[in-house]
C-alpha cells in the first residue's frame, strides 16, 4: 500500500528538484529552479513553512540533511557552482559555510554516514568530486578534490554505509570504517572511490550504461556484509550492483524503462528501491525470495498498490 498522507504545496515558483526529510521524518526540505530551498514542518500531517533559504543564485539541485548529532545542518548545491551548508539557529536558517571551489554546476551533495564524522561529498559538472570534512579542532572545513572523476560532469554521489568488516581493507585500524563513495556521470560510468590515506583512489569503474548516469545510490546495509548499489541512466535502464569486496561487482538490469531514469533511492532498510523516470512514473522494487527484483508498485501522484 502506498497511501498519501500529506500533499504539500511548496509554493516554489519553478520546478522542484529534490525533496528530503530529516533524520526523524519531522521536517521536509525542498529545492527548486527558483533558486530557493524551503524547509517545512511536516509532523502529524501538517505542513508549515519554517524557512525559505535564499542564498543561491541558480537552480538548487539537491539537498541533504546532516545527522542530528552534528546539529541541524542542511547542505544544498546549485547551478551557481556553490555548495552551501545551512545551519538552524533559533528556528531560522543561516549560511554556515559556503564552498565555491567548483568550476561548474554542483549537481549532488550527500552527507557521509554519521559514523565517519561530519563529511560532505559534492559532485559537479566540472567533472570533479569534492569531499568536505569538518575539522572540529580548527572549526573549519577541509576540502579534498577528486579531479576528473567523470569527464564532462559528475551527476550523482552516494556514500557507502559505514561498516566495520573484514572486507574493509583497512589494516592499520580495522575498527575504523572505510570511507567509500560511488559516483555517476556524463561519461556513462559508475565509479567507486575509497579514501586511502589523504587521497581518494578509484577502486572500481563500472562500465555498463550507454548514456549519462543520472543517479547512483548505495544501499544502506542491514547487517549483511554485502554491498549493493543502484544506478540509473539516461539510457532508461537501472542496474543493481552487488559486491562483497567493493572491487568486483556483479550487475543485473533491474528493468529498462520507457523514459530516462532520473532518480534511484533506497528505503532506510535497504530493501526497497524507488525509481523515478522522466515520464513522472515512480515505481517501487524489491527482491523476492529467489533474489530476483520485481516491481511491487507503481506510484502515481503519491498513491499506489503493493502487488
Amino acid at each position, binding site marked *: *500500500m502506498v*497511501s*498519501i*498522507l500529506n*500533499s*504539500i*504545496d*511548496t509554493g516554489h515558483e519553478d520546478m522542484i*528538484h529534490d*525533496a*528530503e*526529510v530529516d*533524520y*526523524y521524518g*519531522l521536517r*521536509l526540505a*525542498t529545492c527548486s529552479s527558483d533558486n530557493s530551498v524551503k524547509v517545512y*514542518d511536516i*509532523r*502529524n500531517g501538517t505542513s508549515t513553512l519554517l524557512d525559505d533559504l535564499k542564498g543561491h543564485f541558480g*537552480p538548487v*539541485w539537491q539537498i541533504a540533511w546532516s545527522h*542530528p*548529532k*552534528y*546539529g541541524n*545542518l542542511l547542505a544544498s548545491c546549485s547551478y551557481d*557552482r556553490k555548495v552551501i551548508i545551512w*545551519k538552524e*539557529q*533559533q*528556528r531560522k536558517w543561516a549560511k*554556515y559555510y559556503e564552498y565555491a571551489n567548483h*568550476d561548474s*554546476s554542483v549537481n549532488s551533495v550527500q552527507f557521509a554516514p554519521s559514523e565517519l564524522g561530519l563529511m560532505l561529498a559534492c559532485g559537479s559538472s*566540472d567533472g570533479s568530486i569534492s569531499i568536505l570534512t*569538518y575539522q*572540529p579542532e580548527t*572549526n573549519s572545513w577541509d576540502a579534498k578534490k577528486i579531479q576528473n572523476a567523470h569527464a*564532462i*560532469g559528475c551527476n550523482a554521489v552516494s556514500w557507502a554505509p559505514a561498516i566495520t568488516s573484514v572486507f574493509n581493507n583497512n589494516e592499520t585500524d580495522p575498527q575504523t570504517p572505510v570511507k567509500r563513495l560511488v559516483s555517476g556521470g556524463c561519461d556513462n560510468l559508475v565509479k567507486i572511490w575509497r579514501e586511502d590515506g589523504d587521497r581518494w583512489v578509484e577502486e572500481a569503474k563500472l562500465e555498463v550504461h*550507454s*548514456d549519462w548516469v*543520472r543517479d547512483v545510490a548505495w544501499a544502506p546495509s542491514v*547487517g*549483511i556484509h554485502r554491498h549493493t548499489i543502484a544506478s540509473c541512466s539516461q539510457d532508461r535502464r537501472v542496474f543493481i550492483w552487488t559486491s562483497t569486496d567493493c572491487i568486483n561487482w556483479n550487475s543485473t538490469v533491474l528493468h529498462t524503462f520507457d523514459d530516462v531514469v*532520473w*532518480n534511484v*533511492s533506497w*528505503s532506510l*532498510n535497504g530493501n*526497497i528501491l*524507488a525509481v*523515478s523516470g522522466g515520464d*513522472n512514473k*515512480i515505481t517501487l522494487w524489491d527482491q523476492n525470495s529467489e533474489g530476483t527484483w520485481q516491481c511491487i*508498485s507503481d*506510484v502515481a501522484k*503519491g498513491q499506489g498498490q*503493493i502487488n
Partner: protein
Amino acid sequence: MKVKDLERTANVAWSPKSQYPIYLAAGTAAQQLDASFNTNAALEIYSLNLSEPGPDLQLISSASSEHRFHKLIWSEQNNGTIVGGCDGGLIKIYSSSKLLKNEEALIGKTEKHSGPVHALDFNPFQANLFATGAAESEIFIWDLNNTASPMSPGVKSQPLEDVLSISWNKQVQHILASTFASKCVIWDLRKNEPIIKLTDTVSRIRWKVVAWHPEVATQLCLASEEDHSPIIQLWDLRFATSPLKTLENHQRGVLSVTWCKDDPDLLVSCGKDNRILCWNPNSNQQNGEILSEIANTNQWTFDISWCPRNPALLACPNFDGHVSIYSLMGGKTQQIQTTNKIADSFPGMEGYIQAPVSQTVAVVSNDLSKPPKWLKKPCGASFGFGGKLITFEHDKNLILNAQQNLQPGQQTPKISRSVQISQVITEADFVKKSVELEKAVEYGNFTEYCSGKADSISDQHQKYVWHFLRAQFEPNSRAELLNLLGYKIEDINNTLNLAVGKTANSVDQLSDDFARLDDLGGDPFNDIARQNKKRLSNFTIETGNDDDGLITQALLLNNVEAAVELCLKSKRFADALIIATTGGAELLAKTQHEYLAQSGGYISELISAMVSEDWASIVKNCDINSWKEALAAALTHSNDEDLVKLCEQMGNRLEQESLPNEAQLCYICAGSFEKLVSSWTEGGKQSTQELQDLVELVTFLQKAVERQGRKVKVSGGLADLLSRYASLLASQGELDTAVAYLGTSTDEKISNLRDRLYVSLGKKPVFAHDVRQQQNRRGSSLRTSFTNNSASYGAPVMANHFNSPAPVPNQFNPTAQQQQQTFNTGLPSVPPSLNQPWQPAAMQPPIGSFPNQSRPFSPAPVAPPRPPSVNSAQGSTSSGLPSKKYILDPSVTSNQYGNASYAPLPPQQQQQQYQNNFNNAPFAPQNNHMPPTQILNPAAPSYGVGGDMQAPPIDAAQMAGAHNYQANAPPGWNDPPIIARQKAQPKSDLGSSEPITHPIFGTAPSQPLPTSNNGYGDFAPPPSMMSPPPNTPYNPAQAFQPPRAETNAYQPPQSFNPGQFQQNAVQLMGRNVGACATPEPPAPVQKAPIPEEHIHMQTVFDELRSRCSCSSNNAQTKRKLEDVGRKLEVLYDLLRENKLSPNTLNSLHQLVQLVQDGNYTGGLALHTQLVSGPEFAKIAAFMPGLKVLLQCALTLQVYLR
C-alpha cells in the same frame, strides 16, 4: 570548456543518437590546405574517448578519398550511413559500419549535382531520406534505397543561386527549408512546391544557415554571414512578413548556427569574429540573450554540430586546423599543449627556447548562465524514516496548459508545485502479525497462545519449539519439559515399579513408598546391613591369609580402610561400599569413586554424576544422540543456575554437531535468548516471516523467563534482532509498536533507534547539537577533551562545575546514558516550545511555566537585557530572544564530563541511588547540596507524574555527588583557578557599552556554583540574588509544570542552546574569567551589523575576493588576497561605525558598480581619484586592499556575473 581536440581541418558529423559509443566522422575539408600543401583527403572515424583525461580523440578507422568534403552527415540507416558532399556535384555515400570494420566502405556515389555540394541533411523521421543542395538552386531528395533517381522538391527557385544550407523540419516530415544568399525557401514535399519565401528587405543580409526550432514546427532561425549585418533572425512562418526577433552580438558574419534538440532554449552560433556564442533564442531580451561565450578562437570556426547523443557536446571545426569539442557544462579549460608540436617541427630549438611554463590561463567559466534543460531533474522520490515516501513530479501538461491559456500581458498563473508524502506498507501481513503478537503479550494468556501456535504449525520442529515454550509457562515447567523429552514422570515410575515388582501404579502409592522409606529412617544401606546381619547366624569366623581371611582380620580390628581396600581388590564392590559406609563420608566417597572408576558403562557415568552432582560431565561427554537423556537428567537434578549452564552447554555441543534444531530446544529450556537468536540467525539474511517467527519466540521466552523471576538482559544478538525487528516495523509506519519492542535496553543500537522513534513520534524534542561540541566531544579521554576544548568552548564554565555538583542536570535525563552512547552527548538542547514552534500540540503548559521558572533570576539588576546582536561568522548565534533565558549551560558540561565520569556506575545502581535520594527528599533547601536540588526541582514533579517513564538511569552522584565527583575527577579540575576566578569577578562588565544579559547566567543552572561552593566552604556567599531563596518559585510544583507526563521527565534542561553556550564560553575564555557565578556576563566580541544600504558592498567585494582566490593558483596572490580580506574588514568596520563621509560612500558605491560591470580599469581610476582626494587619511587603511583586489581581478580576468 574545450574537452577534446582533433588536429584536422575537417568537416565533421556526429554518429547518430542510437550509436554507442559516440563517434565523430571527420572528412578533410575542401577549399583548405595545410602547411605541407598535402592534397590527400580522407574520411576518418574517431572515438570520443571521454574517459581518457587528455585532449586526444582516438582514431578508429580511416578511408582515403580522392575528394575533399564540404559537408558530412551521418544517419542510422542501414547500420549507419555517412554521406559527404564534395566539389563538382559529387555525393559520396559510405557505410559507417563497414568503415568501422576497416572494410571498403564507399557504397555509392553520384554526380547529379553541379558545383560544390554544401547543403546536406537527413530527414529526422525517415532515416533513408536525405536532401542535398548545390549550385544553381539545385535541390534533390534522395532515397538511400535507390540513389539512381533523386526527387526534386519543386521548381528551382529563381534567380539561380548556390544552395547554402538545407534543413528538414523537426516536427513535420515533409517540410524542408533551404537557404540562398538572398532568401530562404520552405518547401512542402507533398505539394512539390515552395510554400513560403522569407526575405528581409530591410537589412542587407546574406543568409547562410537555417535551423528549425526543435519543438515549434513553424519557427526557424536564419543566420547572416554578411559582415555588415551579422545577425541571426528568428522567424515564425505564421507571421512571415518580418522576423520575430533578431539576435545581435556577433561582430562579423555568422557562419553557422545550430539549435539544441534537447533544449529549445539553446542555440549556438559561430561567426567570423572568431566567437562561438550560446543564445537563448526564446528570451525576450533585447538583441537576444547570450547564455555563454563558449569560445573565442584565433580563427574562424566554420561549422558547429551538436552531438545528438550527448547534448553537452559540440564539435566545432576551425580554420586553424583543429576540430574542437566543447562542453557546455563549464569547468576548467584543459591546457592543450600545442607548443611541443611546434618545437618538434624545429629540432634543435630546445636549447634556445624554454617551453613556456604551462601558464595557468585564468579560468573563464563558460558554462551557461542558465542551466540547460537536461540538468533539471523533473521528478524524484526519496524515503524518510517510518516508511515515508516523498515524491514530486513535474507535470508538463499542467504547465503547458497554463502557458497556452496565458493571455498576453497576463501574469503566468501560479502553478502549484507540490510534494507528496506517502506511507509505504510492503509487509501488511507482517504488521498484522506483530499486532497480534503484541495483543497476546498484553493479554498474557501465554500458555494458550503457545499451544495454539504449536497446533497450527505443521513443521515438526516448530511444533516442538512451541511446546517447549509453552512448558516454560507451566507452573511446573521442568516436569513439563521432561514430559516433552519423553519422560513422563508417572509413566516412567509405573514402569519402574513394575520392573521392581511393586504393584504401585500411581503417584500416590509411590509417594507412600517414599513415606514408608522415611519411616524406616536412617540410611538405606544401614537397613540393608541390618537385614544381612539377621540372615548370618551361627557362623565361624575364618582368619586365614586368603582375601576373605584378610578382610575378616581387618574387620575384626576395625581397620575399615584396609577392609575396603581388600574388598575392592577382590572385586567385592558391594562389600567394599557397605564397609565404607562405616568409615565416614570421605572413605565412602573414595570408595564410590574407586568403584565407578573400575566399572564401565553409561550407568556408572550416571551414578557418578549423581553422586558427585557433576552433571556437566554427562552433558559434555554423552553421545550426541543422547542429548534428550542428558537434558532430562539436567532438568531433574540441577538447580536453576546450573540448568542454564548445562542447557547452554548441551546446545553448544548440538550446534557443533550441526543439530541446530535440537540446540534451539536446549536454549529454550535454558531461557538463553542470545544463543537462541544466534543459532536461529545463522543462515544470513532472513525473510520478514522468519524474523517475525523468531521475534515471537523470543518475546515469549522473554516473558517466560521474566515470570520465573530472572532478569532479561537485552544485548548482542538479541539487541540486534529486536532493533532489526523494530526498524522493520518502523519502516512500515508502525512507530508505536516498534517502540514497544525496544523495551528499556541500553544497547547502543536499540537506544539509537528508540531515540529516533521517540523524537519521530513527537514524544521527545529534536536533538540539536552544535557541530563543534559534538565533534569535540568525540575526543576520547575525558582529560584531553577537557584541555583540548577548553579553548573552543565552555572551559571556565565547566571548570566551575567540576567543583560543584553541577553534573546534576544529567540526572534529569533518564536517557542520558543512552544518549551519550548514541550521540555522545547527554541532553537535547532545544525545548520544543522554544525552538519548535511548529509543535504546539506537544507542548502544553510549559510556555506558561517558563516565565515562572525564570522569574527569580530575570530581575537581576546588574544584567540589563541584551540587545539583539549580529550572528557571528560561525553562526554561533546569540540573539536576544527571550528563549535564551532558559538556557542551561551546565547541562552541557555535565554531558561532556558528567556523563563520562559517572559512566562507570552501573545504571541499575544509579537508579537506585537516585530513587533513594529522591525519596529522601533532598529538596529541602537546608540540604547541604542545595544547588542540585534546585536543578533537580524543575524535573522532580515530572518524575512524579511521569510514572510510566522507564526507570531512568539516573545519575547517582547527585546528592552524594559532590563528594563522589571530586573523588573521581582528575585533580586538575579542582584546581584553584576557580577560586581565583570567583574572586576576580569583573564588575567592569557593568560599565561596558554593550550590556548583555547573558542568558546562561540568568538561569537556574548557574546557581549551583556559588551555592555549592558555599557548601564546601570555599567561597564567600555569592550575591544574594544568585542564591535562590528556598521558598521562592523554585518549588518545582509551582514553578515548573511537567510539560508532558510520559516523556518529559527529562525535558527541563533541554533548553540549552549549544551555539549560545559556545559563544559565551569563548568569550569567557578570552577574558580568563569564570564569570559563571555572576549574572553579568562579559560583552561579546560581536560586531554590529553593517548598515543595510552598504551590505551590498560587502557582498560584492567578498565575492570578488573569493572568486579571485579560487581562480588563482599562485600562493603569493593568495596571500595578497588574504591581506585584502583584512583590509576589507577595516572597511566594513568603518561602515558599521558609519565613519565614512557620504562622499566616500558614494564613490565606493560607484566602485562597486564598476566591479559588477567588470570595469576594473575604471575602478582603478576611481580608486586613484579617491586616494588623491581630501579624505585620504580616513580611507588609507583599506584603500590599498581595494586596489590589490581590483588588480587581481583584472589580471586573473575574474568577473562577477
